[in-house]
């Protein structure tokens, strides 16, 4: 067999194969079962020619492999360069809904207090005056007991004017320590205006434990306010009066818009009023059977709409109840 001639012919055929199919043809022709090389190998009887032919076969196989490698990488490159997708085309839009802004604030507040190890309690919205007023130490002369300020279903049943009654329920049902917040709708007989609505949402917090102090109240609310309004916020507390807390404090947060420089949001005082707070009045603790000498606690209440309006610059509370998608979709 003309080894050299066969090799030249095969190598040139392999080298000239320009597609994988052509290469395959060449492989079959020169390395296939019926190829001259294989025929020759079968007929080999002496080691020398066998070695020659085998090395030729190896060379050819290697050449085929190299050529194949080359062709396939060329092919890959060609495909990579040819196949293109216009990535700037718009995708398929999936409709997305939006949680109500107040729900979003509710979740934020819940999460802050879950992180602090508080329980979230959903109380009743329709309450007896016993829980809504008496248990909260409201004197009989308190204006909230008047039909001018609260919504009564009958003499003894009132739509809760704050979420505090749920505190009483929780304390009555369990033993201290208590760490809870209660979030929900509350009802007051108010004429709707820019900042008032007869129905609004309130978050009420309560912590009763051994050794709870006013400092704890301050720290807890500071934590909440920084979570809601930014980590640079400062707080101040002003003395106030609420029947269910003693001492009572009104928390102010430093204005997040002007940082205390004075602006329309904080009415040029640098501080924004938020709600009410204080140390749980011993009468309330006694009412639920806790010993006020052993247990102390703090409580606070803040309107969720107020937080939402302040933070997002809503000038009025009304739109929060209109369910206009143009508003809902902003948040």
């Amino acid at each position: 067999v003309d080894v050299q001639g066969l090799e030249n012919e095969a190598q040139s055929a392999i080298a000239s194969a320009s597609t994988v199919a052509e290469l395959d043809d060449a492989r079959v022709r020169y390395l296939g079962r019926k190829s001259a090389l294989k025929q020759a190998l079968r007929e080999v009887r002496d080691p020398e020619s066998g070695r020659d032919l085998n090395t030729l076969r190896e060379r050819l196989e290697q050449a085929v492999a190299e050529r194949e490698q080359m062709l396939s990488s060329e092919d890959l490159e060609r495909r990579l360069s040819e196949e293109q997708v216009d990535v700037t085309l718009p995708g398929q839009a999936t409709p997305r809904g939006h949680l109500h802004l107040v729900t979003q604030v509710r979740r934020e507040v819940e999460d802050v207090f879950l992180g602090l190890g508080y329980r979230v309690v959903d109380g009743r919205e329709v309450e007896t005056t016993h829980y809504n007023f008496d248990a909260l130490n409201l004197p009989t002369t308190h204006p909230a007991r008047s039909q001018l300020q609260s919504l009564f279903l009958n003499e003894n049943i009132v739509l809760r004017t704050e979420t505090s009654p749920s505190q009483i329920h929780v304390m009555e049902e369990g033993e201290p320590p208590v760490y809870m917040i209660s979030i929900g709708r509350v009802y007051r007989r108010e004429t709707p205006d820019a900042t008032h609505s007869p129905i609004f949402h309130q978050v009420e917090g309560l912590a009763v434990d051994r050794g709870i102090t006013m400092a704890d109240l301050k720290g807890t609310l500071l934590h909440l306010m920084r979570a809601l309004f930014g980590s640079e916020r400062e707080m101040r507390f002003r003395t106030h009066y609420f029947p269910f807390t003693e001492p009572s404090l009104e928390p102010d947060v430093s204005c997040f818009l002007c940082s205390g420089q004075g602006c329309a949001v904080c009415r040029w005082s640098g501080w924004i009023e938020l709600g009410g707070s204080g140390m749980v009045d011993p009468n309330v603790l006694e009412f639920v059977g806790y010993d006020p000498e052993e247990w102390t606690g703090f409580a606070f209440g803040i309107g969720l709409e107020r937080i939402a309006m302040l933070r997002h610059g809503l000038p009025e509370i009304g739109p929060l109840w209109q369910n206009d998608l143009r508003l809902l979709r902003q948040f």
Partner: protein
Amino acid sequence: MKVPVSWLREYVEVSATTQQIADRLAIATGEVERIVRRGVADENGNYGLFKVGRVIEAGKHPNADRLQLCRVDVGEAEPRQIVCGAWNFGPGATVAVALPGAVLPDGNMLEQAKLRGEVSDGMILSESELELGSDHSGILVLSDPIEPGTPLADVLPLGEEVLEIEMTRNRPDCLSVYGIAREVAALFSGELAAPPGRDPGEPGSEPPDVTIEDYEGCPRYVGRLFTNVAIAPSPPWLKARITAAGMRPISNVVDVTNYVMLATGNPLHAFDFDTLRGGKIVVRRAHKGEEFTTLDGNLRKLVPEDLVIADAEGAIAFAGIMGGEDTEVREGTTSILLEAANFEPIGILRSSERHALRTEGSNRWEKGVDPHLAPQAAALATELILELTGAQWAGHVDAKGELPDPPVVSLRTGRVNRVVGLEIPPDDQRGALERLGFDVSSDWKSTVPTWRAVDVTREIDLVEEVARVHGLEKIPFTLPTRSAMFGTLAPDQRLRRLVEDVLVGAGFSEAYTLSLAASDSDEKRSAPRSAHLRARGSPHDAPGRPLVAAARHNVNMGNEAIRLFEIARVYLPSGEELPEERRPRSRGSPRAASRRPWRCRDALRRPQGGAGLRAHDGAFLHPGKGGARSGRLGRRAPPEHSRRGVGGLRARPRDAPRAPPERIVYEDVITFPALARTSPSSWTRARRQGTSSAATARRPGRTPRHARLRRLPRRGHSRGPKVDRVSRRVPLARPHALGRGRPELREKIVAALGSAVRGGAPRMSPQADTVVFSPALNEEESSPGVLDELRGELPGVDVLVVDDGSRDRTPSSRGERGRGAELSGEPRACRGRRGRYEYAARKHYAYCGRVDADGQHPPQELTACSSAFAPEGVRRGRSVRASSRATATSRTATSRARRAGWGPACCGARSGSSSDGRSPMRRAGMYAAARPPSRSRAALHDRGAPRSRASCDSPTRAFVVEEVRFNMRERAAGESRISGKKAVSLVSP
């Protein structure tokens, strides 16, 4: 409470600026809303331009009838010529003059001007121009002979800063200038003046006749009689203070009563003594039907609960609230009876509410005024009345009942620190209390000053006093040292969030609607006294109505793609005192397209896992397009929202959606391959009975599922090969679901099924309806079970078990021969595919198949099967294009079907073009039928007969190859059992 600062500083000496005072008060006492600066501004030498002047000449302006031309000495070398419009003065009057350049309180700068040809070199001022009072009828004439040129500021309070403080209802003592002064003194350690007022000498010998009939309503009544009273306007300083404090000057006596109230916090009243019938005062409850006219001119009809001041004949004043017109002090009054009383708060509050009459007086009384304050107030008033009216103090009486002793409260300094969270030295604590007027003994027993007796009764109240005086800002910010943590949401709260998230993910936005409704429009207008909750079942409820209203609002606003939901309470009558409140409550959604109410369901299905629907025509739903399961869902009944589609869903509050389980137990995903399934039970039932299942006729009309199913054949038709329409449908959808509501179609289907099964149409075997050919299995033990199952699945069908020649003989199967199963007696004849088919043909069986235990059926099998039975002249290998790989492929089919939105469904598979034997399903048209209800799916699993199908067609006829896969038995402990088996049947339409 408006507190003029100059007045405040009269009672307390502090170096702090007004701003500092305001800031401190705001923190420790009450909210300081603002500091109002009124009167003449003291800046840029403005004060220097206001002088005292003496009118030297005054005469008519030569060119104007209403103007006076004056020459006024203002202490300069030459008098100034000033034009003035007032006529209430003449030469010699001492007046207030503003010189050119002065800035008046209204912000205007005075300039030299020519008025009707005469130069006016300044301005003679009136009270109102100086904001010292409301009188603008004439200029302000100063009574005292003051040297002209004296700065006016030395004589009158030209400029004033006023603190506007909003006090809480527990601090009636701070509704007075002196009360605020006491706070300022305590907060700044300032020098507090003695309480204002000291009795000037002794009263005369005519004590007024005062009787208190109701000591509960009126614990104390100090009455003082003054004679020879000259009623006149008050002096400027008094007017200025009262005006600055927000009240209107009236006359000297009335102004004195108001001044004393502002100064001390004890409201006073003055009666014209001569108008008192019988010359006596009785404090009592009103008689029934009694009435009198109050100062504001309204006739008041009294009820017996009202406390009144009466004379010998009848009521003359509302105690503590307002005096009567008849006994009013007016011009010409010469003797007055001054009332410095004390009234009980609740009665005053109730009367004031009852008669909708709120006054400065009632505002103080209803919060509780110190009964020890009355003599002090009376003394101050007496001082002023004598000074201002030249009256004689003719008599004095102090009628009183038992006055409460000041409370004594013990304080533990450690308790203060424990509540406040700050170590406050005992001396500081004592100092704070003492500055507030508490008398603290050495063992910390604190006697509460009488003016704080209402508010301070317990130790905790003292804690507040110490904390606020010491400084709330000094308390650090800490977090509680926890002994217990509870930071998890309850399951229903997690569920609420989940439902919210799922709905939001499905494109719904959350709405909030009011939970109150007016009971009807009339009552709404008349301001209902009680609230009306929207209770379920009440006519106001109409579920979803608020959301529809919200949707309508959005439509009106031009918004598109409106999808809303709400989660809120429902209030149900419970039979008990309080209604039952349930939550969460999901309400439905308005929408624009026709199919989307079901989106609600699909959205909710995810959290609760598989929710089917049953038909429901609840109150708000379209009667033919509603469903219910864990709530109500459907198209809204038409009239409510015209042609725009509104879908609604309302989850039933109590039991749905179910909360996610506390713990989800892993379900093995590896052991069993995902299979396409249909319900063999219904299929075989249909075959057995020759009719559709009873479920078919259960409900008339369309349900969403039907709508979905209906689509299937249509889609198949467009792509599939040309085969008989009915026969093609049969295998693709569950028979009972087909042709519902279309009886003629159903008949066709049933007929097709019947012919396929019972041999109405071309039959292939004279001996049996269908032969299921079961392989010899590797586990001999299971053969009897397999046979039982096969029979259970295919009753009335002969079963042939063929030993395919493998080494694992099935001796126990042989025993089944007599029970309808045949075991080939010629194992070797059955060897190989062709052998088996030939065997079956020889025996006149319809079909032979071989199924592997692993559930995989080689594709060639079907080809061979087909060719074995192919009529003459049909070329082998071409007539059948199908694969029993359906099992494997259907996984793809299933996932594709899922992507296409069908949800997990049973998938039939159909070959498209010629099979290359490797992936025959690659181009298969796919069909997905609705997934069977989860319950029957579970049953299916138990019975273990998932089924996949491939349909084949030949030029001459179409037929369907079914593959039935029987359950894979679990490998029980120590007992190796058969894990899968499959049979193939051929159904010819």
